[in-house]
């Protein structure tokens, strides 16, 4: 079947042995690719209760059926899947760039990495030639430096590299995997999994042809989507970028500020998209095959952080900025650059720093612990210093490098009330108290606190529902959006392009058929989306997560919004959460405990995993 390379590469880092297995058309169609295929491969190659940072935990890298083609945003994505050291459940993160396209041309749909190398190594994939090479000379280097060093060593400028930084090497639970210098598979701490395997980087060169089943239909679709990408559907991304959301969420009084101490930041005029673009954005660049190009490269041109360069988006700007009470863009850009330098998830890093600031202001920390840093809200210098400490896992960074859940346990007292996380993954920039569909979505998200598992927050923000109300019906909305997002991450296309799919599942079905030649309907894809989400849920169940883990951070449930305005007093009560959880589980056909029924597994073709729900 076209669209798939038809091959899965297995690499045992302990023995250094590799082999390939055929990816059957049946498996490909059933799990689509990307996170769907990755979850399936992870589940089939791991044992229940596996320690995320042990050699036995596989790290899966998976591509989608459109990877390597010319489809805008579709050609370029890749997904990492494993058991998350942060949540103990599903770990999954998607990144874009060029790496995924290169790997597809090398002839693989997925790579399953197991074991642990004796010494630091990097994986060099040159089409069918696969080798583990010595990485001792690049161990300790940033992803940026690693990429350049590997290209130099292999003597090939067009080699694509995904690597970890110091944070991943030191197995920080907020470490990410970075490709092409500024792109991150950011969330759920998968950089630590890679580090635990002594695997510094994956370098790829692929030279094979990629073809599609129906070239004429496909080419017309590409042309059509190029046109759509010039239109209003993605205008925000093309012009001001996702940072535009700063004023949107702030105006709606739902931007978490100072670690959820407020829902509104009084100084957004210093950090909003207009200022960022006017003073700092030096260039907007594109991922491979993308016609909407949205990567805003921000450069600091003067002052103490002169020369700092980072890709700025809503989430890293929010996390390192307003969330820490900081309104200095140069410092925020520097902090974001350092997150890339050390290979840290910028969102989790920012939330961890704001947590520390909160603890400090509430007097939970001793003077000795702070090592001369003054972490009060608004101190931009402290944010920069703390990213360094976390990246190096040094001094106070030792306490913070595993995210807020672990840090709160170390601090004790009532620090856990200030730790803004779900299932161990730090929150993102949408105040869940006053975005109740988003709150449900975050509570049930299989990878922990995140808005990118369903995008349900847009329903709240756009006023499609009453965002302050918890009511029946939200379960179905979240389910439907989750199923679409699971497909987006399995195909893989970019979430920023989702509005160009005017006919959502219909467009995706047409694309799938054009690329693979296999006829699928929108309904088939809808079922595949449900299958993928259910599979992820099965993994979480197997790894011991229950309904109790589908919950919200303490502040979201116990500390109402205090700012004057439309959201004043908003909070999510346990009754509201229970009502929405029941509604969601019901919409999914799961029990009140959130366990899929055998009949549901049968319906989705997941019988082989029935034992998990019987246990």
């Amino acid at each position, binding site marked *: 079947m076209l669209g798939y390379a038809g091959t899965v590469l297995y690499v045992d880092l302990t023995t250094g042995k590799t082999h390939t297995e055929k990816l059957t058309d049946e498996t490909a169609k059933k799990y689509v690719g990307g996170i769907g295929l990755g979850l399936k491969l992870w589940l089939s190659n791991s044992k229940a209760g596996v320690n995320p940072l042990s050699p036995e935990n596989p790290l899966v890298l998976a591509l989608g059926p459109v990877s*390597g*083609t*010319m489809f*805008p945003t579709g*050609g370029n994505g890749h997904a990492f899947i494993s058991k998350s050291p942060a949540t103990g459940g599903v770990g999954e993160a998607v990144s874009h760039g*060029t790496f995924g396209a290169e790997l597809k*041309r090398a002839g693989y749909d997925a790579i399953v990495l197991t074991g642990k190398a004796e010494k630091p190594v990097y994986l060099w994939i040159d089409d069918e030639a696969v080798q583990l090479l010595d990485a001792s000379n690049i161990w300790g280097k940033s992803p940026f430096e690693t990429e350049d060093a590997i290209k130099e060593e292999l003597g090939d*400028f*067009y080699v694509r590299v995904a690597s970890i930084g110091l944070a991943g090497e030191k197995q920080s639970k907020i470490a990410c995997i970075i490709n092409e*210098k*500024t792109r991150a598979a950011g969330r759920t701490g998968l950089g630590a999994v890679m580090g635990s395997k002594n695997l510094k980087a994956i370098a790829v060169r692929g*030279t*094979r*042809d*990629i*073809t599609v089943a129906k*070239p004429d239909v496909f*080419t017309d679709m590409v042309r059509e989507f*190029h046109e759509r*990408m*010039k239109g209003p559907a993605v205008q925000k991304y093309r012009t001001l970028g996702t940072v535009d959301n700063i004023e949107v969420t702030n105006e709606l009084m739902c931007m978490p500020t100072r670690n959820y101490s407020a829902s509104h930041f009084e100084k957004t005029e210093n950090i909003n998209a207009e200022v960022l673009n006017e003073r700092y954005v*030096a*260039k*907007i*660049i*594109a*991922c*491979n*095959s*993308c*016609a909407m*190009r949205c*990567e805003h*490269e921000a*450069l600091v041109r003067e002052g103490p952080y002169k020369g700092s*360069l980072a*890709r700025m988006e809503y989430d890293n700007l929010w996390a390192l900025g307003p969330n820490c009470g900081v309104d200095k863009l140069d410092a925020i850009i520097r902090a974001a650059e350092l997150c890339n330098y050390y290979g840290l998830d910028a969102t989790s890093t920012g939330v961890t720093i704001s947590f520390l600031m909160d603890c400090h202001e509430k007097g939970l920390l001793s003077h000795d612990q702070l090592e001369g840093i003054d972490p009060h809200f608004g101190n931009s210098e402290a944010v920069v210093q703390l990213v360094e400490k976390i990246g190096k896992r040094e001094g106070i960074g030792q306490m913070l490098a595993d995210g807020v859940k672990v840090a709160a346990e170390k601090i004790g007292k009532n620090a856990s009330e200030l730790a803004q996380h779900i299932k161990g993954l730090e929150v993102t920039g949408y105040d869940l108290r006053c975005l109740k569909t988003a709150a449900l979505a975050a509570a049930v998200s299989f990878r922990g606190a995140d808005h990118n598992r369903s995008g349900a927050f847009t329903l709240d923000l756009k006023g499609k529902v009453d965002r302050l109300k918890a009511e029946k019906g939200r379960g179905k909305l979240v389910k439907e959006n989750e199923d679409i997002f699971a497909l987006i991450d399995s195909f893989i296309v970019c979430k920023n392009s989702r509005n160009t799919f005017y006919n959502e599942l219909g467009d995706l079905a047409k694309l799938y058929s054009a690329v693979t030649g296999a006829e699928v309907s929108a309904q088939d894809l809808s079922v595949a989306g449900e299958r993928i989400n259910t599979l992820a849920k099965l993994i979480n169940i197997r790894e011991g997560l229950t309904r109790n883990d589908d919950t919200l951070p303490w502040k979201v449930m116990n500390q109402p919004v205090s700012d004057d305005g439309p959201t004043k007093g908003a909070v999510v009560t346990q009754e509201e959460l229970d009502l929405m959880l029941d509604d969601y589980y019901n919409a999914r056909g799961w029990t009140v405990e959130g366990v899929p029924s055998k009949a549901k597994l049968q319906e989705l073709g997941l019988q082989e995993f029935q034992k998990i729900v019987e246990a």
Partner: protein
Amino acid sequence: MVKIHQRKFISADPEKCVGCQICEYACSYSKEKAYNPIKSRIRLVRVNQLANMAVTCRLCEEPACVAACPRNALSQSEDTGNIILDKEKCNGCGWCIEACDYGAMMLHPETKVVYVCDLCKDKPDGPQCVKWCPEEALTVVTSDTLAQKARISAIKKLFQEKEEKQ
């Protein structure tokens, strides 16, 4: 021989180029019915995040590639200035690749002979990379039109600065 002033080639504007590589896909698909950058006659170079530019044949006057070929496999078209390859004569030795300052000559992975941009001379709608470039960063130009563009933008900038100062 067509005069150098009238010779048309494909030029990329580094200000506009975003590094998407769509030109590479358009070229390889048009020429080889496959998506594969190593079969593209135009190649994108991203030196760092801020420096992106696609490069292809410049149709030089007295082209070094032609001069370098020990087998007379390369010649320059009298009509257009295009570089023409005689596939029978080329043995893939690569001297032309070494000689070209722009990296525009490449060795084909399968045919083992060199290949170079021919400005899609067989396509009625012209070079496919130019047609597909979503940023309009690629244009078919002569050196004169490039000089004109540079002149106009320099003067515009000068007056803009003047206005800003006033």
